[in-house]
């Protein structure tokens, strides 16, 4: 839902942003010198990739060291060898994610295992809703946690400060702060009839009000123009070569280009579907692998194309819940509980699997069937927001009200 814009109001955030911009110009560059090493990056960025449908975390980061793992999954376990990557003595990485190996090795990729929501639901839709609202078990929350995050970040509003990729506004970015959405694939920089001044002027007369449609119209025009401007270089490059493939890697390339053109982009969101592998999940190859590969490849492309901006970007990959420890009767898995969260980016203290491992023996499983949750997702995201974006406890309370306290282990996930 769109709400009255704050564009015209010289808000506290605008003043803060102006102050911050001034500070950059000052000669004392004390502390960590990210601004000096990345002169074209002024912001701290967060990219969230939501895997809708519940990805099987026990295949993404298979717990090789757990004696019960392979027994629970006679046909779909990800076994050592076969191209799979050794993370440490306890865990591996799915072979379809080989493109991420360099990031593990340079310690900018971490995982938080047995992470998830404290809510018990095995409904995709409730679980996604809770993970996007940031308030597990509370259905009355109107906005999403990324929108609340936007509300506490410093800086003036502009049309592409937060970007959702796709034709609809996801729950996680819905709320008081205006957010632009950008079309997927090649449609992102397609021309619009509103590029023609006469048509633009005619429609402008119809959408002058302070109503939600007028706000959406104005946001849409501004975002379209900003995206077109940001992607001009990308368009030129694409026109000279073969059309870029349609899919996640196209969208992350667009995002990387936009971020390089416009360093004030703070937040971006993608949702990818197709993870609900009730049948024929596959192992090192197969259905799940076919979905993981473009994701891993796309994340590697994003990191590469961000260039120096990677140093100021954290990418989170989250999913509403995990899947059953035991494979079901159809070589698939059903709705479970605990999952793995992926944390990637220059500021990440990576090369490590975070989180307490609860084990897979039946007596320690959640409801006797699922991986237990030992790290609340709000704790994990909160640690990133505090360490990476500098949120105070009070600001974190706004983003995640009623959040549990963080352990010392998880707060170390962002390098100081």
């Amino acid at each position, binding site marked *: 839902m769109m709400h009255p814009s704050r564009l015209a109001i010289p808000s506290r955030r605008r003043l803060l942003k102006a102050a911050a911009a001034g500070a950059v110009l000052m000669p004392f560059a004390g502390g960590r010198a990210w601004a000096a090493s990345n002169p074209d990056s002024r912001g701290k960025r967060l990219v969230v990739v939501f895997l809708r449908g519940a990805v099987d975390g026990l295949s993404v980061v298979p717990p090789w060291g757990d004696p019960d793992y392979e027994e629970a999954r006679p046909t779909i376990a990800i076994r050592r060898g076969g191209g799979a990557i050794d993370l440490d003595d306890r865990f591996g990485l799915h072979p379809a994610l080989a493109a991420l190996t360099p990031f593990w090795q340079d310690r900018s990729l971490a995982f938080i295992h047995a992470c998830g929501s404290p809510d018990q639901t095995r409904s995709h*839709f409730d679980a996604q809703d809770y993970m996007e609202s940031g308030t597990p078990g509370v259905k009355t929350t109107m906005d999403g946690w990324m929108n609340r995050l936007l509300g506490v970040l410093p800086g003036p509003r502009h049309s592409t400060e937060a970007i959702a990729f796709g034709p609809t506004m996801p729950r996680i970015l819905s709320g008081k702060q205006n957010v632009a959405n950008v079309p997927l694939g090649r*449609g992102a920089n397609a021309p619009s009839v509103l590029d023609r001044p006469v048509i633009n002027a005619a429609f402008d007369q*119809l959408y002058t009000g302070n109503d939600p449609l007028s706000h959406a*119209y104005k946001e849409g025009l501004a975002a379209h123009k900003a995206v077109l401007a940001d992607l001009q270089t990308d368009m030129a490059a694409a026109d000279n070569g073969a059309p870029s493939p349609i899919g996640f890697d196209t969208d992350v390339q667009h995002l990387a280009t936009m971020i390089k053109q416009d360093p004030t982009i703070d937040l971006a969101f993608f949702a990818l579907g197709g993870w609900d592998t*009730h049948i024929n999940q596959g192992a090192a190859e197969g259905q799940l692998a076919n979905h993981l590969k473009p994701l891993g490849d796309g994340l590697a492309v994003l990191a590469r194309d961000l260039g120096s901006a990677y140093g100021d970007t954290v990418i989170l990959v989250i999913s509403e819940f995990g899947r059953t420890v035991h494979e079901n009767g159809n070589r698939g898995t059903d709705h479970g509980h605990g999952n793995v969260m992926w944390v990637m980016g220059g500021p990440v203290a990576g090369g490590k699997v975070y989180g307490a491992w609860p084990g897979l023996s039946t007596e320690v499983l959640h409801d006797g069937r699922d991986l237990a949750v030992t790290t609340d997702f709000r704790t994990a995201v909160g640690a990133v927001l505090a360490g990476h974006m500098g949120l105070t406890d009070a600001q974190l309370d706004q983003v995640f009200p009623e959040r549990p306290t963080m352990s010392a282990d998880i707060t170390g996930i962002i390098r100081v």
Partner: protein
Amino acid sequence: MTQDGALVRHVIDRVGYGPRAGDLDLIASRGVDRWLDDQINPSAIAIPADLTRHLDSLATLRMTPTETFVTYGPPSYRPPGGGKPTADDLKAAIEKGRVVPAEAVEARLLRAISSPRQLEERMVEFWFNHFNVFVGKGLDRLWVGAYEQEAIRPHVLGKFRDLLGATAKHPAMLFYLDNWQNTAPGSPGVRGDFQGLNENYARELMELHTLGVNGGYTQDDVVNLARILTGWGFARRDENEGRPRRRLGFFGRALMERPSAMRAVARGRRAFYFDPDRHDTGTKTLLGRAIPGRRGDDGVAEGEEALDMLAQAPATARHISYQLAQFFVADAPDPALVETMANTFQSSGGDIKAVVRVMLWSAAFRDPAIYATRFKTPYHYVLSAVRATGIEVRNIKPLYGMLAQLGQPLYGCQTPDGFKCTTDAWLNADAMTRRISFAVALGAGRLPLDADPDPQGFNARRPERMAEKEPAFLKANGTPVATSTLMTTLGDRFSQTTVGAVNAAAPPLQPGLLLGSPEFMKC
């Protein structure tokens, strides 16, 4: 008369996809109540001969799931000369099969645009979405059309229990939510991919189709319902041939060697088949009630009993009533209206027509305060725009591509909860600029809606690929829609601001401004 005019516009905007030329006069002269009475008894409304002719030309629309599988499915047969089908064989089959979802989309959109049974088309949209299946999941590309024809359309204003049963047994649903593989562990039918329980359908059956997520069921109920539904799957080839049972894959791959024989068998056959060999014969407890296990072909009766229980549950009456009221009346429907509808649902034994009647005659639905307050869904917006122009549509591809661009590809919702219908779900920055682009192209007569249909270029699995080519669809020159006709068709709904902007604009842009105006974005 002003008040009546507003009510007339309200009912055609909400009960249908907005007015075509002459509709407002027709409803006004018939009277709103009598027109709604007609709508609620659609079989009495004649279908125009043109529409019937067009639908008759869509051959795959009348095919059973088995027939489409045999004719357009994967070539698992060995071609003459032996050997497995090559990659080229598979590609050719996929190309050949594009016609099936293309014709399903064509039939649905044409009906919604030109059927005078507008409420029926709205109910088809509602129920298909409620019992959603996804064209992009494997064989469902061949079955979404048959699913709508066989399981949805006959029951949209009928008994909920019939609708529930028809969806539960249709191969499109059995495949989409995986129940065709749901097998009792250790049963004699265990083989290959049929090794054990799959709770996917059982969960969504309670969460989405009947009780609702807070409808009072537990994880144990999900498992027990999955056990009850073990063995619900597809007909097997040996069953279809009336021969003794042999354990082959569904439809029997070997029979593909004799497709003509299979086609003969397939005609008139129901694809649903209950496999007692894979059924769990133990006693189950569902929602506190013991359901004794049954053996042999009687095992299917457990599932029927479970569907009876779910259809009769008060939670189901509330859940369905809420969703209907949200679809037709308001994003957050009045609880009193929902309760009245739920009571009718219960007292009528789940008679959908009775529930819809109570809703359409309620004060909440007739309240002028709700007129033109909702942002249309993409589906509603695109259909209402085409209806208003009166353009005869032969080629639905530009419309289908537009729906994909706007995030609501027909038959393309991947998840079982279906598309949302609320303003919040669809109003966003990108939606506005895209709708305006569409409105301007449609109003200027530049969408090639009169071109020859071309199913080969139709990509139901990746509609966004069609959408991305959309600018190339535009004709260089078109005949603009007549502005005065369009304004008469749509009635007195436009503000002075809009009328002023239209009058000041160049004629080819005028219809686009009307169709891209805030008044037309809402219903």
